[in-house]
Every structure is written in structure tokens, then in C-alpha cells.
């Protein structure tokens, strides 16, 4: 069908005085494929839209160019208008003659406006329109990790009617819940929480659990991930619409950080918790207990929180003298400052160092020497027990899984690249989410928020009836594709795979639901086989042509 173009010019209430609109109309109206040039004062208002609609219908144009304010402001509105008229909304091209022309320069800018509009016209001529279609999606969700975050994600998804499968590496669910002493400010103990969550999961028909199992392979894309689950010798394959990683974290005392190896009188927080659970079993009540945090690095929200919580528990259960050595007390989590104040009021002494404290062990006791900056003095503390900070680290297997997913980790090795557009819980690969400890949200408050936002995002993604997408907006031409894999390597969203076309040939296929329409692949394809409708090479160069 030959191009028949309608051009609307908006002078924004007559305010764009440095553009000579009649001149533009005179100039462009002569172009053969332009059916009309209409000057309006208020295209963005209801009456303007009505005028556009009636003119388009009357003249039966198949391309629309609008010269008006920034498309950031008006594009969606006009696209919807076109859709309402039964035209494909991608057959629209907008020239930004207000923000980037009239308002940006003093003096007459008719020539520039004319050129910008020509750019838009050139582009519009080549626009082809893209159909919208539904992509069927699998509504089951895979949850990797059966600790607090994994269990809670599954339970919340179930409440929204979404079925999940939990894959847990250990032989039982629960993760760290089985080890924790207590939550500050929460009457429920971790053990009770564990018991009630496990019971709810057992009773929930929407949740299936694989224990002693791991994810062996991840393929596919959002709506249809093909997952291989390994359980002992057995492997099974299943399809899922989305994946939530909740693999938690592990803690470790880093021996190189301490002069003495842990053991004896240098104990972990975990060991202290065990002692506190059965104080009557202790041979001797420790008189003095020291805590050290910020020893290895300063990413110490979790060690600080544990130290404060356990310091208070020591006061409750053992009544010992408690000293906390830290560099900068990390209080930037909800309730931590309150906890700190309570500890201080209960007689816990806080000492702050700049230089790493020196730690010696002698005669069954531990000596800590540090320069306390608050006192401005060297302090030597002889204590019965030194509770070492436990550093939170990414769990075993994070590297392997992230390379399997082809997703970057952050600078500390936790999941999720440090890119603000992915926050809070998304990844570059659509449909893959990270919650809780495995992405570095180590406190329960932040982990809970993570979970709810992942569940919300999954629900949005797998909304009922499948997802509406632009069909083949970015498409690899199977005739031109030489299966060189370049696009697959550069795609930041893992949206491209090779598929077989016949017994001989494989070609790249771009998955509409996973693709985020950036065009990186189209710019790099050596065979120029990838076409990004709306931003194709021809369309971009047609704009360039107009200068």
C-alpha cells in the first residue's frame, strides 16, 4: 500500500512564536505522499485529539507525523488515540519541536523545526507497524532455596494462587531459621516460625518441595524456563514461568582476620547462641565477654545486629560484663539504633577503634588490645570469651549458578548486578528474581520487603491470560542469519537462542517476552540480520538523511 501521510503541527496555544507554521505547511504540503498538513493549537487536549481522529478517518492516511511537544509527554497519548482508531500505533512518528527546538533556542528556528519534521517524515515513511499478541506463559514458579526467604516467597505466591516448587539443597527446609537464637522485637522464636511455616507448606496444595536437590540446568526464558532438577542420582526436567532465587547466605569467621584460630575461647556467634540456649551446661559462667565487629571489612550490618542481639541475651541469661569493639556501629536498619540504646542502657560497653585491635590468647583467656577513639586511650581487655564477627558471604554455588544463568554478581559476590534499574529484586534476565540474603539483604526486615516485591513482580509478570507483547518488534531474519552467536553473546537480557529451522540450519530467535527492546543485538549483528522495527538501520538512517 502506498504511503499516505498525515502531518499535524501543534503551535502549543500559539506560544511557539519563533516557528513560522504556515511556512512549514507551505513547504511540506507540496510533498507527494503528504495528504494534509493541519496546524492546531492544542493537539494534546480532548478537542485536539478529536480533531486528529476525525481528520485521520476522513483522509484515510496510513502514517501519522505529529510535530508537537516532547514524545516523553505526548507519545503514549497519541499511540492510544491511533489504536482507538484501529490504526497500528507504531505508524506514528513525533517531531519534538517544543522542548528541543522552540524552547531551546532564541530567535527564529523555523529551519530547524522544518528539518526535525522532515526527519520524522522520513522515518514515518518506513514504519511498518507491529502487531500485539499474547504469549502463553507457564504460571508455575521455581523457588530455589528453602530457608526463610524461599518458604515465605512460596507461601505468599500461593496466596495469590500461584503454584511453586521449592528446591532445597539440604535434607530439610528451614535454612538459617534452625540456627538463630531469636529475633529482636519479635515474640515468635525462629524455631516456632520454622515449625509453623513448614506446617503451612506441607498443607499447601500449591507448593511442592524437593529436598536434597539442586538446580542442574537453567534454559529458556521468562514464561517458559526449562529447568533440570537434580536429586541424588535422579534428574528431572520441568518448565516454569519465573524463578525466585532465595539461596540465602553463609557465615564464616575468616581465620586470617584473627591472630588466633577460632576455637577455644574465640567463638562464633552461632556457638554463643548454643551456649545461651543451655546456660546450665556451661562449666563456668564467663565473667567477661567481648564482641568484635568491623574486623575484616565494614559491610557489617548483620554482624552488628547479631552482636547487639546476643549482647542483650548475654545480659539476660549470663549477666556477664559485655564489651563491643567496633569501628563504625552500623545502625542503618530498622530498630538497630533502638537496640543499641537498649544495650548501652543495660551496661554494654562500646569501644570504637580505627586500627584493627590486636588479639592474644593466654591462660585460657583472650586479650584484646585496641586504641579506643572515644577515650583516646589504649585499652586492654582480658575476657573469658571473645565472640568473633561472622562475615556474611554468598552461599556455596553462587558462582556456578550465576554463570549458569549468565548473570553478573555484585562486587562482593552476592547475586544481582549493581545496577539501579534492577533494584530491588530483578535481574537482567526477565523472570529471574533474587530475594533476601543471596542478594545481600541480610536483615529480616529487608528480606521480607524483598520477598513481597518479588512476589508482586512475579504476579504482574505472569498476569492472567498470558502477556501482551509487541510481536517480533525485534526480529532476526532467518534467511540472513548465519548463526554466528554474536547477538546471543551480547544480549544483556538473555532473550536470544538458536533454534533449528531444518536438518541443516540453526538460526537466532529473539523471544518477544524476554526481549527488552534495547537494540544492542541489531547494532552488532555482522550479517545485519536483526531488524528492530521503529529503530531499524533504514529508519535511523532515514532520519540522518534529512539533515
Amino acid at each position, binding site marked *: 500500500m502506498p504511503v499516505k501521510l498525515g502531518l499535524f503541527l501543534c503551535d502549543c496555544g*500559539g506560544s511557539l512564536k519563533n516557528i513560522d507554521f504556515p511556512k512549514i505547511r507551505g513547504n511540506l504540503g507540496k510533498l507527494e505522499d503528504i495528504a494534509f498538513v493541519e496546524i492546531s493549537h492544542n493537539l494534546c487536549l480532548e478537542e485536539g485529539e478529536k480533531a486528529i481522529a476525525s481528520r485521520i478517518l476522513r483522509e484515510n492516511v496510513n502514517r501519522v507525523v505529529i510535530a508537537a511537544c516532547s514524545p516523553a509527554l505526548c507519545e503514549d497519548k497519541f499511540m492510544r488515540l491511533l489504536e482507538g482508531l484501529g490504526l497500528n500505533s507504531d505508524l506514528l512518528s513525533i517531531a519534538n519541536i517544543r522542548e528541543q527546538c522552540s524552547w531551546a533556542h532564541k530567535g527564529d528556528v523555523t529551519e530547524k523545526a522544518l528539518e526535525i519534521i522532515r526527519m520524522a517524515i522520513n522515518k514515518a515513511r518506513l514504519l511498518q507497524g507491529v502487531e500485539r499478541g499474547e504469549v502463553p506463559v507457564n504460571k508455575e514458579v521455581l523457588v530455589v532455596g528453602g530457608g526463610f526467604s524461599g518458604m515465605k516467597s512460596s507461601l505468599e505466591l500461593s496466596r495469590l494462587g500461584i503454584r511453586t516448587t521449592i528446591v532445597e539443597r539440604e535434607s530439610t527446609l528451614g535454612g538459617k531459621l534452625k540456627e538463630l537464637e531469636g529475633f529482636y522485637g519479635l515474640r515468635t522464636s525462629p524455631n516456632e516460625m520454622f515449625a509453623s511455616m513448614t506446617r503451612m507448606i506441607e498443607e499447601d496444595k500449591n507448593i511442592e518441595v524437593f529436598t536434597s536437590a539442586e538446580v542442574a540446568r537453567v534454559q529458556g526464558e521468562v514464561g517458559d524456563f526449562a529447568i533440570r532438577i537434580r536429586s541424588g542420582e535422579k534428574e528431572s526436567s520441568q518448565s516454569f514461568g519465573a524463578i525466585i532465587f532465595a539461596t540465602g547466605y553463609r557465615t564464616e569467621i575468616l581465620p586470617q582476620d584473627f591472630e588466633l584460630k577460632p576455637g577455644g575461647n574465640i567463638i562464633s556467634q552461632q556457638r554463643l547462641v548454643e551456649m545461651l540456649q543451655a546456660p546450665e551446661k556451661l562449666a563456668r559462667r564467663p565473667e567477661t565477654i567481648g564482641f568484635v565487629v568491623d574486623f575484616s571489612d*565494614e*559491610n557489617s550490618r548483620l554482624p552488628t545486629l547479631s552482636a547487639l542481639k546476643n549482647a542483650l541475651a548475654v545480659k539476660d541469661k549470663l549477666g556477664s560484663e559485655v564489651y563491643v569493639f567496633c569501628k563504625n556501629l552500623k545502625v*542503618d536498619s530498622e530498630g538497630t539504633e533502638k537496640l543499641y540504646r537498649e544495650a548501652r542502657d543495660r551496661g554494654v560497653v562500646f569501644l570504637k577503634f580505627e586500627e584493627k585491635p590486636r588479639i592474644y590468647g593466654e591462660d585460657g583467656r583472650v586479650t584484646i588490645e585496641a586504641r579506643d577513639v572515644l577515650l583516646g586511650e589504649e585499652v586492654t581487655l582480658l575476657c573469658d570469651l571473645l565472640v568473633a564477627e561472622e562475615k556474611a558471604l554468598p552461599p556455596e554455588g553462587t558462582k556456578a549458578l550465576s554463570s549458569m544463568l549468565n548473570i553478573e554478581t*555484585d562486587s562482593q559476590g552476592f547475586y544481582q548486578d549493581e545496577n539501579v534499574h534492577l*533494584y*530491588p529484586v530483578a535481574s537482567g534476565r526477565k523472570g529471574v528474581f533474587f530475594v533476601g540474603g543471596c542478594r545481600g539483604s541480610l536483615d529480616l526486615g*529487608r528480606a521480607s*520487603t524483598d*520477598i513481597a516485591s518479588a512476589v508482586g513482580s512475579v504476579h504482574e509478570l505472569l498476569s492472567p491470560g498470558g502477556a501482551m507483547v509487541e510481536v517480533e518488534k525485534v526480529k532476526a531474519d532467518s534467511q540472513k542469519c548465519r548463526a554466528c552467536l554474536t547477538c546471543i553473546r551480547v544480549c544483556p537480557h538473555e532473550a536470544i537462542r538458536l533454534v533449528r529451522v531444518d536438518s541443516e540450519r540453526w538460526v537466532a530467535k529473539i523471544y518477544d517476552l524476554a526481549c527488552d527492546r534495547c537494540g544492542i543485538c541489531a547494532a552488532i549483528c555482522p550479517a545485519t540480520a536483526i531488524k528492530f522495527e521503529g529503530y531499524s538501520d533504514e529508519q535511523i538512517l532515514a532520519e540522518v538523511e534529512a539533515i
Partner: protein
Amino acid sequence: MNKSTVVIGGGISGITSALELANSGFRVYLIEREAAIGGQAASFCCKATEVCTKCSVCLVPQSLAKVAVHPRISILTHSMVAGLSGEMGDFKVEVLRKPQYITPERCIACGICAEVCPTEPKAILPPSPEAIPYCYVIDERLCLRLRGEKCNLCQGICPTDAIAFDLKPERQELSVGAIIVATGFEVFNAREIGSLGYGRYPNVLTGLDLERIFNREGYLKLPTNGKEPKNIAFVQCVGSRDESHGYCSQVCCKYAMRFARLIKHQNPDAQVTIFYIDLQTAGKGFAQFYQECRESIRFIRGVPVEILPTPSSELEVRFENISEGKVERETFDLVTLSVGIAPRKDSWDLARILGTNLADYGFFDTKETFNSVETNVEGIFLAGTCQGPKDIPDSIAHGIAAAERVMEVLEKCQ
């Protein structure tokens, strides 16, 4: 069952909740007190140096643009909640909309009205560049007509008949299933600490002032002479971790360090000093940044007690240098007070209308610990800093979390 939702507050948390719900098929009424949505974060600036420093401010305009055109979101600006009845699944929310004189639905931001406005300064102001809706605003205190005089110039010339003066406040009732409170925070008023001289000495600024200066100008200049400052101090914990604010505001260490790096990036000769008690450097993507900061920024563990002007119009900061154990003084040409996040003073009014509880210091209270979105009233949820201090990523996460909870309860009620 009513599947629509009212979101009170159009800041980053509120718009995130609204988008999340609208994208999942729910109808949303977004109620905003001001003339434009966007809240505090919309006036903040990108703090990238040669690389992104993860302040997340750029996420705000993106979400705003999506809210503005979403067919399932109705934005009610200049509005507030005046009453509530009913219960979860069937709330009746009474909304009071103040007259705006320039109708956002009609204003095309051509600016002709401001050109003809006869007052000096003009009584009609252009919107801030990212305002949504992008609509001019009349300042009631300056407008001749609203002060009883006979001026009619703007109304006469407006090409879209967007201006009307004979408007009365409007009341409307919305029937909704659930409510999200996302009213945000107030910046701590640094004038309350008189000894630091905010409001008295023009070169004492707050973190919020800095956000706005960078947002508007793109670089930092001294309010007194417009020159680039050479020696800048940041004072941490102003309005945080004290007796009346017994919490950490969670954002100030990070924004101060990001600003410090930005200033150093733009002017490598500038000297930047940060006075602190405990640096909060944990968190995703921050540990490495902090290490880089240590190379170019001076950190002093100490609390400034007083700021006084010197005869050469610099600022003398008297502070307790904790590490050295003595009181010292040093001069700077610009001092920034890293003010914290305080609860909104009007939270009490809203809490009374909604029947929700307020917690310590005046933030909205949650039903239980670690469930930071549910309130004591079924069907009313919290999102963002109205519940407690949060940075932008945490506010976004909280906004989605609140929306998720709304979906869950409304789905269940069906």
C-alpha cells in the same frame, strides 16, 4: 468486592505502588497534596561522577512518566483525604480537592499566562521541569485577582480556557477496596539546632538544599557570591540519632559521600571533610564506593557543636575531634548539614482519619515487627518513608511490597 485502591501520596513509594497495582489490573486513585506528583525524590539530583554512584534518583522520572499516562491510574493533585468510612473491601474515602485555578487537564504549559501576568515577581509560575502534571501554578499570595483586585489578563489570554477563579474546594467520595498510605517524610528542620546557624548564615546549607542546587544548576556554588566553594564540610547526624530522633535516617551518610565525590569530581582542587559519629557504609554496592571515598575525602570522627561566621565571611566550625580527644576549630567556605528523615507533622491528622496508630517519634506504626507494610487497620497498608527512614531502592521495594499485600487481600476477599 471493590478492586480499586487509593494511594495517598505521589512520591516514589506511592507511584511505585500505584504502577504495580495498575499493571496487575487494579484501578488506582493517586491522591497528592501538592500540584505535582513526584514527592521529595523528584527534586533530587543524579550524583554520578564519571560512573553511576547508585543514588537511584534517575528511577523517579521514569516511574513518573509511566504513572502519568497509565489508563488505570487517576491522579488527583491538590487533594487530601478528609474522611474514611467502611472496611476492607468496601472503604469510602472522602477526598477534598483544593481549587487549583489552572486546570491540569487543560493546561498545555505554553506559558502565555505567565507572560501577561502584571505582578512582579510573577504570580503564575512555571512547573518544575519534570513536574507531572506539567502545568503552571498560580501563587495565591501574589495573584491580584485572588487578592480581590480586578485583574483578568491571564484568564482572558489563555488559549485553552484552563484558568478559572471562581472555584470552590471540591469533595468527592471514592469507593475502594484498600488504601496505601505513602505520605513520605519531612526533612529535619535544621533551624531547630540554632548553634549550627542554618537560616542565619547563607553558606550553611542542608543536604536537601544541595540536592536542589545540583538539580537546578548542575554544579555547586556559594549562595553568597556564586563562586565555586573550595573547602566544604559535611556534618552528619543532624536530626538523627538524638534524643528526639532515636533512629538512624539511613540515607545521610550515603548522600553526603556521594555529594563529596561529586564535588571532588567537578572540582578536584576542592577539599571535602565529613564529620561523623558512625559511618553507615554497609549495603549493596556501597562498600567499594566507600573505599574509593577514603582516597579523596577527609573523614573526621567528631561532632560540630557550633558554626560561626569569620570576618572574612567564611564559616568557623568548632568541633569535638573524638579521635584526637580535643575541641578544635577549622574554617570552611561552605557547610552542609546532612539532615535526616523526620516523620511528617501532619501524619497525626491522617492517622486520626484512618484510625491507624503512630509509632515512636511519629512514623506510622506497623502491626508487627518485620511486617512493615500492614497497619492495625485491616485493608490499610504502608509504603515508603511514612513508616520509617528508607533510601530510594528501599522505598521502591516497600512500595511494591505494599501493592503485593493489597493484591493478596483483595484477591482473597473475592
